[in-house]
């Protein structure tokens, strides 16, 4: 039993690490979509961020510089998206897909040109990455049963970007629900005419929402390549952007619920890898195939309406014409 609890604890620990980029991207998606812009390009922005972070960290030796450059690169991609579908009123899905394809190709091409390693970036040394932070008191608390293990494994011992991801959720909720900008942003995603007739620029509001999303996606990208991993590998975002988007929809475009959805996805993935071949109490050994299929089965079930009817922003996907 104690062994099972320990396994569970390790699974929760892995859940956080897997969910961190999903959470950041989901918050980015909430900003974009609440302002009325569909953001399929979360994936591409994250991938861009991952490459730029790893490349800059490898060249400069500083993960922080890598992070900052990743954020700017991701914002640039956001601006491209905005230019196409806010300024020029293009189709938001097509623009998003185009950015994903662009990011997928461009990262590899530039990677080969810079490092000649088939699109990968050099493996970063210990000091060139974001290291796990051991919080004070880990040693002393170790003596306490249960609490000590939880503190060491679950609360302490993550890198700074995981904590940043956790911080992004209340921050997003605060901006959206408590600030002037948030009120206007939500309004522009529902009834842009109302915002326009109040004398506020629809265009500039949507751009700002996308820029904030760019910041979050850039951090998520840097997390993949200079915190969780040690270098950039082609296509390393591996669909996480789309899963984050699914989490936004599961979460009904609300920060806290989207966060829970990200944790659920993270937990399923962590459980899949960790619980393979493990004996569970009462159930016995779960077949690997079932564990692998579980996230997808759940996704389909949830999408089929087990979470109630989604209520997307009313003006989502519609360019604003006067």
């Amino acid at each position: 039993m104690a062994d099972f609890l320990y396994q569970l604890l390790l699974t929760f620990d892995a859940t956080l690490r897997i969910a961190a980029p999903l959470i950041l991207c989901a918050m980015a998606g909430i900003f974009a979509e609440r302002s009325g812009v569909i953001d399929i390009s979360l994936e591409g922005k994250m991938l861009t961020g991952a490459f730029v972070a790893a490349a800059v960290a490898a060249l400069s030796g500083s993960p922080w510089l890598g992070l900052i450059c990743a954020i700017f690169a991701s914002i640039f991609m956001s601006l491209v998206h905005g230019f196409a579908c806010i300024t020029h009123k293009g189709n938001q899905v097509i623009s998003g897909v185009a950015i994903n394809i662009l990011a997928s190709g461009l990262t590899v091409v530039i990677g080969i040109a810079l490092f000649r390693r088939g699109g990968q970036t050099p493996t970063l040394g210990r000091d060139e990455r974001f290291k796990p932070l051991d919080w004070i008191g880990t040693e002393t608390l170790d003596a306490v049963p249960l609490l000590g293990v939880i503190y060491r494994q679950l609360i302490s011992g993550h890198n700074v970007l995981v904590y940043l991801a956790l911080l992004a959720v209340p921050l997003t909720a605060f901006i959206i629900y408590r600030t002037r900008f948030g009120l206007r942003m939500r309004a522009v995603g529902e009834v842009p005419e109302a915002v326009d007739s109040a004398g506020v620029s629809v265009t500039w509001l949507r751009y700002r929402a996308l820029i904030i999303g760019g910041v979050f996606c850039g951090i998520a990208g840097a997390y993949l390549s200079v915190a969780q991993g040690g270098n950039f590998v082609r296509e390393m975002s591996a669909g996480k952007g789309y899963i984050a988007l699914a989490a936004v929809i599961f979460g009904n475009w609300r920060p806290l619920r989207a966060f829970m959805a990200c944790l659920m996805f993270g937990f399923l993935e962590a459980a899949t890898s960790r619980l393979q071949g493990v004996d569970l109490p009462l159930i016995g050994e779960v077949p690997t195939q079932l564990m692998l299929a579980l996230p997808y089965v759940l996704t389909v079930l949830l999408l089929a309406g087990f979470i109630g009817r989604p209520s997307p922003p009313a003006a989502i996907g519609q360019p604003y014409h006067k």
Partner: protein
Amino acid sequence: MTDTNKDGSGGAAPYALELKGVSKSFGLIRANRDITLAVRPGSIHGIIGENGAGKSTLMNIVYGMHVRDEGEILVGGEPVDMRSSADAISHGIGMVHQHFMLVPTFTVLENVMLGSEGGALLREGRQAARDRIVELSERYNLRIDPDALVGDLNVGQRQRVEIIKALKGGAKILILDEPTGVLTPQEAEQLFEILKVLRDRGVSVLLITHKLAEIMEITDAVDIMRQGQIVGHRKTAETSPAELAELMVGRKVLLEVERTEANPGDVQFSASGLGYTNSQGVVELQDISFEVRAGEILGVAGVSGNGQTQLMEVLAGMRHLTAGSISILGTEVTPATETNPRIIRDLGLRHIPEDRHQHGLILHFEARENMILGVQDSDLAGTGFLMDPAAIEANCREKMRDYDVRPDAPRHFAKNFSGGNQQKIVIAREFSANPVVLLVGQPTRGVDVGAIEFIHKQLLALRDAGCAILLVSVELDEIMSLSDRIMVLCDGHNVGIVDRAEADRQTLGLMMAGQKREGHAA
């Protein structure tokens, strides 16, 4: 063009709002031409005109949503360069739009705050906004709960929220664009009471409407618009609904059509007590009864927006009647009957829709494809499972020749034909089926003079061949020159049916103002 009456009392006081020579074009369409008007402070000023006369465009110019091409706007005697709604708001102009500018998922308070939150954090301005709502609702009798979700409010309450929004910054000029279009009569009455209070407290109200009764009931002065221009200015006390109706519809050169005496046969098409209530619960048609005989044209006249569109769509099966019954060649259609345009067409009724771009054609399809729309299952499109392109093209070519469609190019896209020739494609498709009952809406809207004559001749030929025709048009001349009998609609009611011989402009004008019924149309 406008006679700005200067009566002795207010010589020195500047107008609350003045427009001088304002024009606006969208592409080739001149939506507003040389508009000059003046609104006295503390008055209710009406602007009346038919749908599409340019009223909403004009008000959007005043409110800065559209930027004028030429002309001057003066607020309180000072010229203002109106470039955005923020400009308008800062000069004390508020607007209640025809379609509400409210976020349904927000509370009343949040909707009112939007755009003037009073600080970067909502907490800072929330109490002030709440106080302002309470203050305004007390001063102008606009009862509303600040914490109610707008999505839960009824239409009348939403309109009050819009008025509060417009007044929150201390607006002295309030524009209302077709405010009663979505209201029940009781809600409209309440609105008028509110507007009178506003006027008495010094607010200048601009009321945009196409309803004569409203102008007569509540305004102090009125400007009449037609085809983007102001065609008259009257003091309400010195005018009459009939005069306004005539100004709105206008006089046009009567196109003489050669016609023979009608030779009516049996009743082919009739309605009895027909009613239609839309999904919002607004009654749009009430108690309409008529009969159309074989070989006769029944014209439907009225100022546009008085239920003509709804009547056409209900009769064609595009909307479902909610009361009464329709009879087509002896088959009864009641609210219990399943209807759709196809079922109705199979009963023998053919339909030339009012809006050919929306309902008559698919603009991005070729002419030959449009020529078989709705009859694509018949042999015209070829027998069997596959379509027969050669048959479709031959069918189109033949009809284009018969109905003089130019160019006679079956493979041109419908959007590339002129308005008149687009209409001829629709007419060719429907007329060539030799209909026994025909519904025709605005057959010559946006059609050049030559095509008008052709279409009129075709309609009369069809009548002489024994077809029962119901013709809806807002062109009074068209109705008068083609119809054998004329039914007049006002506010969704049948005001009466008159014979061609007794129908002169004066009679029809009075009827269009709803004057045959007791009092004004509510």
